[in-house]
């Protein structure tokens, strides 16, 4: 069994800072290299923001979840919601084209993590929502 550190948050904008603090403290305690800690902070913020907004869009008032663990030499962070789901096209969108007023969250997470995966469904309700999973190598790659 993997030991997860799990934070359940009401789906509201003012809690995103709590998720960042938890993610950074987990990453530090897992010995994520110091120069990657800010990347973890940013990715936690992006993923939790998206989860909160996904709930808001369909007026779901259930909590969202962020959890972390260490597995196979990597720090793993997952953010789960029970929103309407994240479609294929969005997942692989880049930063090309003219500057836009949104749509940078996923490209930022892809750039600042060592792996980025999206699966439908999640820990909270297997048949609903989205789980975003990001990993960070604990040792710098050689």
């Amino acid at each position, binding site marked *: 069994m993997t030991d997860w550190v799990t934070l359940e948050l009401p789906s509201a*904008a003012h809690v995103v800072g709590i998720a960042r603090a938890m993610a950074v403290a987990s990453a530090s305690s897992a010995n994520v290299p110091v120069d990657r800690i800010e990347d973890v902070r*940013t990715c936690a913020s992006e993923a939790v*923001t998206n989860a909160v907004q996904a709930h808001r869009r369909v007026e779901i008032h259930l909590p969202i979840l962020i959890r972390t663990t260490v597995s196979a030499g990597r720090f793993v962070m997952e953010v789960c919601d029970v929103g309407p789901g994240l479609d294929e096209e969005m997942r692989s969108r880049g930063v090309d084209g003219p500057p836009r007023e949104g749509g940078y*969250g996923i*490209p930022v997470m892809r750039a600042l993590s060592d792996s980025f995966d999206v699966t439908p469904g999640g820990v909270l309700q297997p048949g609903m929502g989205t789980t975003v999973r990001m990993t960070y190598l604990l040792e710098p790659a050689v």
Partner: protein
Amino acid sequence: MTIDDQIDGTSAVLSVNGEVDVYTAPTLRERILSAMNEGATTIVIDLSNVSFMDSTGLGILVGALKRMRQADGELHVVCDSEPVLKIFRVTGLMDVFGVVSSIDDLPAAP
């Protein structure tokens, strides 16, 4: 997040402190809009004292840049904090904003 503003005729400098995220970004947007409404045609957003900013903040800044350009105004971003610069870099927005590291590096007002 707190914002100190200094409005001097048609120039405004908004100095942002703290964290810019989905919770605080709406305030940043409002403060930029109200500077525009007060007649500012050159707005400087100083992020030197921002400890954290994510893509929600970027979106607000892109929106402000577009609105300023439509109104023939200018928006400049000052930032010398490494974690904040990184998000401009990975999104390719460094050059779009022409981010400078100090207020002294800005082009003089025309």
